[in-house]
């Protein structure tokens, strides 16, 4: 890979980025250094994020909103400060458009339940064959509850959304179009704005699963064309236990409540209750306070580095990885074969070795990749596969780690005697 390596160029100072992530200098079994190529599954956390969480718990911890003492005011300012930061990070016109959930899955369920409340038989919900299970199952359940019909975009041989029958899918009956922006299995980046425009033309609401998009490139919801958009904290160098649903304010204001409880109410009487305005309406119970603080620190961290630079780095790494993987005999890449509109995840199959075995052998050399269907079984079925191996990258991924992967795959082939 000497040729490719000379051409690798990234705007990031990788050494200084990596210094912020203590786990990246861990040594694994057998003395191998960690090569973490599973960031699409969950990203690592910089010291700054963990420190912010620790500070919060040890110095400012209290419940929010309802606690009126000094610690309560500090905790509330910290929690709502997280909301401000997230709003700014994705270009939301108002902080009140940011709803904190427990993860992207809850955000998508929130969308499916509240939009689902007005679905009826004859209505159509459109998803795609390349969705993560979290953007399929909630809509299947909503359709079961309401009698609406679930339809989906197919996927082309080269791993793009098949838009050839878009006019059949988007009709007056179509009430919701829920699509992933970046596929977690194929890496495909979908043309959300174009599809959203067509969906809006037939009066449908557009829900975007941005779980793999927000971590990777600058996002501006004010121009995207989505009506609701979901992502998850743990994939943007933030904590587990928090996700985000962004929504156009007037849409959010028109939706019924989802979970009931403290904080989301206006007046509770035994005989019936009224509900608060968004975002509180959708945040029942004590919210993920320390997690919002951590997520705020996470988006600050990413902004400090620059999302445009992170995007450029991801692009360079993906290009480098695609090139490297193509040198491995018997390796088949799922989805787009070049780096155009390709997010930071590449799934592949290696002739004669099952993906779990690939991943276990790589793991004994310190290389962490994911094997399985990556919560996207339908798109694997589409390609006639039960599972695949996935390598995924982030701002701290180095070209040397890509080389370790490629070398490791050579070792896998030798070990299983397929070369």
């Amino acid at each position, binding site marked *: 890979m000497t040729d490719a390596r000379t051409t690798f160029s990234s705007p990031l100072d990788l050494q200084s980025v990596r210094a912020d992530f203590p786990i990246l200098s861990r040594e694994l079994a057998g003395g191998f250094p960690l090569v973490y190529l599973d960031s699409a599954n969950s990203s690592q956390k910089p010291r700054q994020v963990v420190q912010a969480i620790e500070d919060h718990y040890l110095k400012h911890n209290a419940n929010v909103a309802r606690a009126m003492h000094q610690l309560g005011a500090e905790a509330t300012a910290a929690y709502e400060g997280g909301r401000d930061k997230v709003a700014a990070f994705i270009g939301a016109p108002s902080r009140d458009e940011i709803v904190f959930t427990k993860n992207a899955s809850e955000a998508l369920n929130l969308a499916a339940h509240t939009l689902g409340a007005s679905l009826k038989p004859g209505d159509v919900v459109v998803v795609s064959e390349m969705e993560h299970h979290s953007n399929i199952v909630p809509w299947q359940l909503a359709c079961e509850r309401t009698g609406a019909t679930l339809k989906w975009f197919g996927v082309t041989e080269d791993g793009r959304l098949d838009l050839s029958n878009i006019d059949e899918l988007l009709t007056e009956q179509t009430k919701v179009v829920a699509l992933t922006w970046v596929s977690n299995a194929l890496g495909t980046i979908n043309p959300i704005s174009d599809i959203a425009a067509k969906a809006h033309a037939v009066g449908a609401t557009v829900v975007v699963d941005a779980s793999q998009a927000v971590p990777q490139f600058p996002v501006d919801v004010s121009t995207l064309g989505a009506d609701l958009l979901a992502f998850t904290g743990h994939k943007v160098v933030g904590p587990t236990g928090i996700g985000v649903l962004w929504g156009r304010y007037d849409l959010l204001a028109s939706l019924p409540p989802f979970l009931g409880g403290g904080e989301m109410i206006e*007046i509770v009487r035994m005989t019936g209750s009224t509900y608060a305005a968004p975002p509180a309406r959708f945040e029942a119970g004590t919210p993920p306070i320390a997690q919002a603080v951590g997520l705020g620190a996470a988006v600050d961290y990413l902004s400090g580095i620059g999302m445009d630079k992170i995007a450029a780095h991801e692009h360079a790494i993906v290009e480098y990885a695609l090139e490297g993987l193509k040198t491995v005999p018997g390796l088949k890449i799922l989805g787009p074969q070049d780096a155009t509109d390709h997010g930071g995840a590449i799934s592949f199959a290696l002739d004669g070795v099952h993906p779990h075995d690939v991943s276990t052998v790589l793991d004994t050399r310190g290389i962490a990749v994911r094997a399985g269907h990556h919560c996207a079984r339908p798109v694997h079925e589409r390609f006639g596969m039960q599972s695949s191996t996935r390598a995924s990258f982030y701002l701290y991924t180095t070209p040397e780690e890509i080389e370790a992967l490629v070398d490791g795959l050579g070792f896998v082939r030798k070990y299983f005697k397929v070369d």
Partner: protein
Amino acid sequence: MQLDNLYQEIILDHYRSPHHAGLADPYDVEVHHVNPSCGDEVTLRVELDGDTVKGVTHSSVGCSISQAATSVMSDLVIGKPVSEGMATYEKFLELMQGRGNVEPDEEVLEDGVAFAGVAQFPARVKCALLGWSAWRDATAQALAANEGVKNA
């Protein structure tokens, strides 16, 4: 965190004998607003005369700050054009969100300047705004209704 900054005598006076308290007839619109985090509630009636605030009356359960603020608010808007009341609200909001760094304009805010200290108690800012939010909502509804009548 000086208590006397918060509980100015003017505030305690308004709290003990709030102006325009007790719901009166006739009125154009009645609203009921709540601060869900603490439970304070205000019922408020507005009567407009064209674009002028003819009357505001209220009945509320709440703390000294919310009750006094509603009382002062009523004084400030009654007899004034709606637009002037809304402008006064903006000034008051600015003061409340200023964390103590905004110099209150006594010309505009009158007794409202007494609330300057509330800005240093972030948890109590919502209390001071409850009556205002009720008045703004009721007034907007009343204007919309008049608009409807005109267009009919």
